[in-house]
């Protein structure tokens, strides 16, 4: 994905370093950049969190509304994940409707949460077939310095853990708010770990400079029971079978480290 001469020079430099097990920013191949997580920073939202992953910055807000369930699961709440690559985050982001990159980002974050059954959607039914709670998770990328998937996944999990629902009772099928709040029922903690393949080697948490030269991307999301719940390969290159198996093992370990930052801070 890179054509200019300058980039080729940098590409070569990055690749040569990685062959020696070193990265341009000094990290080891399986090191994450520094991570900061701040939860609850948007008071208007039912839940929110900001994650700084190096210079990558993602804000996630959770809103809860009342709406209709899907006809095939009439007794479950609805989960909706949306991602906005807002143009202040990168010179390559354009205003306009979501493109394939923001749709892929949203769907990978969605898959991790949905497949690990992180939210107890069956507890979000108000009146079967008629009224359920809709959970809107909005991923807002504020600065793009690589590995948006892991940062967004972490921010989404932190925001969900921070989400409060108002108490209510049903009177004549209408919701009547009662005093107090309850946490959103969260049952699992999916964490995504993303690899870049550069010069035929895997690096964890690729930053922007690495993303620009890497051949392919592999994201492995594992849950708190160490099961894999979602995978996504991206980029115009490929992986060998061995690389995939290696990645799953590293992902499990790394996810455990990251999970601690969110769940027990």
């Amino acid at each position, binding site marked *: 994905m890179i054509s200019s001469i300058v980039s080729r020079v940098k590409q070569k430099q990055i690749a040569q370093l990685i062959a020696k097990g070193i990265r341009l920013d000094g990290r080891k191949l399986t090191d994450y950049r520094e991570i900061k997580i701040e939860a609850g920073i*948007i*008071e*208007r*939202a039912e839940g*929110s969190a900001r994650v700084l992953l190096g*210079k990558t*910055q993602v*804000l996630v*807000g*959770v*809103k809860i*509304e009342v709406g209709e369930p899907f006809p095939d699961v009439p007794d479950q709440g609805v989960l909706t994940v*949306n991602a*906005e690559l*807002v*143009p*202040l*985050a*990168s*010179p390559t982001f354009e*205003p306009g*409707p979501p493109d394939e990159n923001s749709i892929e980002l949203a769907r990978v974050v969605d898959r991790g949460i949905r497949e690990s059954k992180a939210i107890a959607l069956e507890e979000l039914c108000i009146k079967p077939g008629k009224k359920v709670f809709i959970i*809107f998770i*909005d991923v*807002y990328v*504020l*600065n*793009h*310095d690589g590995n948006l998937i892991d940062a967004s996944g972490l921010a989404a999990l932190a925001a969900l853990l921070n989400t409060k629902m108002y108490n209510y009772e049903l009177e004549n099928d209408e919701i009547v708010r009662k005093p107090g709040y309850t946490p959103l029922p969260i049952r699992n903690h999916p964490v995504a770990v993303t690899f870049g393949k550069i010069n035929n080697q895997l690096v964890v948490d690729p930053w922007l400079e690495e993303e620009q030269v890497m051949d392919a991307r592999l994201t492995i999301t594992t849950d708190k029971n160490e099961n894999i719940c979602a995978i996504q390969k991206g980029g115009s290159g490929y992986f060998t079978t061995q690389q995939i198996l290696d990645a799953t093992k590293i992902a499990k370990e790394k996810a455990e480290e990251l999970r601690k930052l969110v769940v027990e801070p």
Partner: protein
Amino acid sequence: MSKPEKLLDKKGLRLDGRKLDELRPIKMEVGVLNNADGSAYLEQGKNKVLAAVYGPKEVHPKHLALADRAILRCRYHMAPFSVEERKSPAPSRREIELSKVIREALEPAVFLEYYPRTAIDIFIEILQADGGTRCAGITTAALALADAGVPMRDLVVACAAGKVDGKLALDLMDLEDKYGEADVPLAMMPGINAVTLLQMDGSLTLEEFQKAVKMAMEGCKQIYEMQKKALKAKYVAIKEEIQE
């Protein structure tokens, strides 16, 4: 948020305890984003606003470029979670209008003629909204422009005045805006007494309007001082970094 019984208490203080001519607490920071050429962050009460500037840069498609000056583009946008009811991320008619008037509030300040055939993009993101976001957006965007090194006649600063429970009040918050009698957002370049944005809705007599304008301008001047301080803070920080 339902309608409060009163917007002013017996002492004439407002819902958040402010006096009529008092601004909300304001916090500003310049240079908060890495990729943008310039950026700033502002909190004004519960408003949280981020602005970024990209440019001067090439224009695509080229036929939109102007031979004698840069084009200024502006997008005011609200995060879906910034308001009580989730907002669709697609731009609303309100956001399109505000993008226009904000651009026209900033344009008089920028020496566009210095950069012919280029574009300067301003992106304003409202992360949390509590009334007066267009003014907060202008104040923040002006800082981002300065941070990007775009030459300007003066900083642009904005503040609203309005009328609540029959009294003129400065810097309305959401409940006052919604249930008050009038709102007058105003932007200016204080150094040259130039009003670059003026809107109004509600109902005011000519005399009230005149006073509201004066009140908003006083607010602007206070915020203007904070803007200058925030810019200085950034350059002091840079200087220290260099000297270290």
